[in-house]
């Protein structure tokens, strides 16, 4: 083969990839940069300021939205992690009638367009409200909705983790005289814990990033940060919205870094066990 050709094509691939990298990061960077812009309107750069971040502290609407986002994220993540872990364990452990069907059915929230899921829930809540008076739109309905799309992801992560565990460990514990409960809580569960944490982080990030489902299931006063950003952007982009968005991006990035560190820690740990 011609020796020059691969070098030239690597150079070409590298520059295309670099341009694509700029393309992927340009939107995130422009929002962060403009959150420090002195100018209230327009897209020109007029100077650096912290003003918009300080202003957020005194903006009751933004603070309420941040509080709602946090409550929604934490409560739905706790619920979904609990239910999803049990589901992952149940689906992994033994066959039961309907297991094949439900293994497919829990993938539905993963593949259905989020807008379809959102309006289906809106309709469901309205009908139940009409019959039973339950489910007034608000944080409660939003939590129910978020848990619904979080459960499958937690269950998938937990199940994958279970499939990677050595069943001999559990059996050894049993042979050494541990009861099923002891074998589970002292052997399986500690090994499963990183998987549960990873599932929880994933669920939390999904909740933090969701706009469409929240938008349709929110009630008066239960708006989240993404909803606030959307309604503000519809009126026109302002630097304080850029500041708010930058903080949300930062929160997502921190959650992602935590997830990556968790996985890396785990990988070195399992390498060590494999080598020992």
């Amino acid at each position, binding site marked *: *083969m011609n020796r020059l050709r691969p070098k030239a094509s*690597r150079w070409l*691939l*590298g520059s*295309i*990839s670099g341009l*694509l*990298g700029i*393309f*992927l990061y*340009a*939107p*995130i960077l*422009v929002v962060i940069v403009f959150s420090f812009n002195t100018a209230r309107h327009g*897209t020109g750069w007029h100077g650096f300021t912290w003003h918009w971040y300080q202003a957020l502290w005194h903006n009751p609407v933004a603070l309420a939205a941040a509080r709602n986002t946090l409550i929604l994220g934490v409560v739905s993540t706790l619920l979904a992690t609990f*239910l*999803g872990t049990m*589901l992952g*364990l*149940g689906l992994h*452990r*033994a*066959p*039961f*009638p309907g297991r094949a069907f439900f293994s497919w*059915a*829990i993938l*539905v*929230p993963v*593949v*259905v*367009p*989020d*807008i*379809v899921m959102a*309006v289906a*829930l809106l*309709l*469901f809540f309205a009908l139940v409200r009409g019959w039973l008076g339950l489910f007034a739109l608000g944080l409660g309905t939003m939590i*129910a909705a978020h*848990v*619904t799309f979080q459960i*499958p992801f937690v269950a998938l992560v937990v199940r994958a983790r279970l499939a990677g565990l050595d*069943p001999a460990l*559990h059996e050894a514990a049993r042979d050494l005289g541990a009861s*099923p409960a002891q074998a589970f809580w002292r052997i399986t569960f500690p090994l499963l814990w990183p998987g549960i944490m990873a599932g929880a982080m994933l669920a939390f*990030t999904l909740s*933090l*990033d969701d706009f*469409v489902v929240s938008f349709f299931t929110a009630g008066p006063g239960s708006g989240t940060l*993404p909803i606030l950003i*959307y309604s503000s*952007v519809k009126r026109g*982009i302002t630097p304080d919205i850029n500041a708010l*968005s930058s903080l*949300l991006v930062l929160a*997502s990035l921190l*959650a*992602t870094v935590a997830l*990556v560190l968790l996985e890396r820690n785990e990988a070195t740990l399992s390498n060590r066990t494999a080598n020992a």
Partner: protein
Amino acid sequence: MHARDPRQASLRAALLSAPGLLWVTLFLLLPLVLIVGTSFLSRGDYGQLERPFTLENYQRFAGFGSLGFDPLYPLIIARSLLLGAATTGLCVLAGLPLAFFVAGLPRRLKTPALTLVVIPLWTNLLIRTYAWQILLAPEGWLTRCATALGLLTPGQSLYPGTLAVCVGMVCDFLPFLVLPLYASVEKIEWTLAEAARDLGAGGWATFRHALLPQIRPGLMAGGILTFIPATGQFVVPDLLGGAKTVLLGNVIQQQFGQSHDWPFGSAVAVLSMTVVLAGLWLYARSATQQGEGLFP
């Protein structure tokens, strides 16, 4: 596991799964059934759901409303599918060099590079999308450059419009395509390409016959992961498109929002869902026939 009694083990597994399955059934499967049912109802004078059962919503969606044939909705379907296909096509064009580049990096650089590709996915789609309003603004430097190069006539702008929607969608969904594609590219048997070269194949022929068949599963999985959210999008066209870029997602939002015609909105939602599930089913079938998993 230690199942002394398989029936007891099966009961335990079912009991463990039950709360999660009940939740998903109550808050997802049941609502989806309800929306299918609602799509056959009529809208009352005050927006309430009414009988009789009717196919009217679907007829209206197909273009046959009470006022004769109107191509509005068939055009919206066509536009959604076209924009979804265009987004997927552009993502493939951009994703191929990116996946090959990352796969060719030294081992210790691969994971960081892949993480860099994925990070934007973890930040809010809404934010990444509205940022293009700033980047493509009429007075922004991208528009000025395009005008200076003669790509745009003065006064014309990149945003709002179909082009802006396309740019936003490609930016939002490119990582979805790159991930499964990378998994395929990583596993390529390069000796096949060398053999094709030795046998005198040119660059394109080598790619087409020696490499493409090897990365097809990743390309398909990535294409599906891109096409589904792109076709059902309502945020991106809502923020970047003008009045002319109404897609299926926007129709659903309008009908459940301002128009308050839930039966018609349900019909549109049911059709969108059907398109997605039918596509997935066809793909799963062809993948099992070729003996490939859904995600390589």
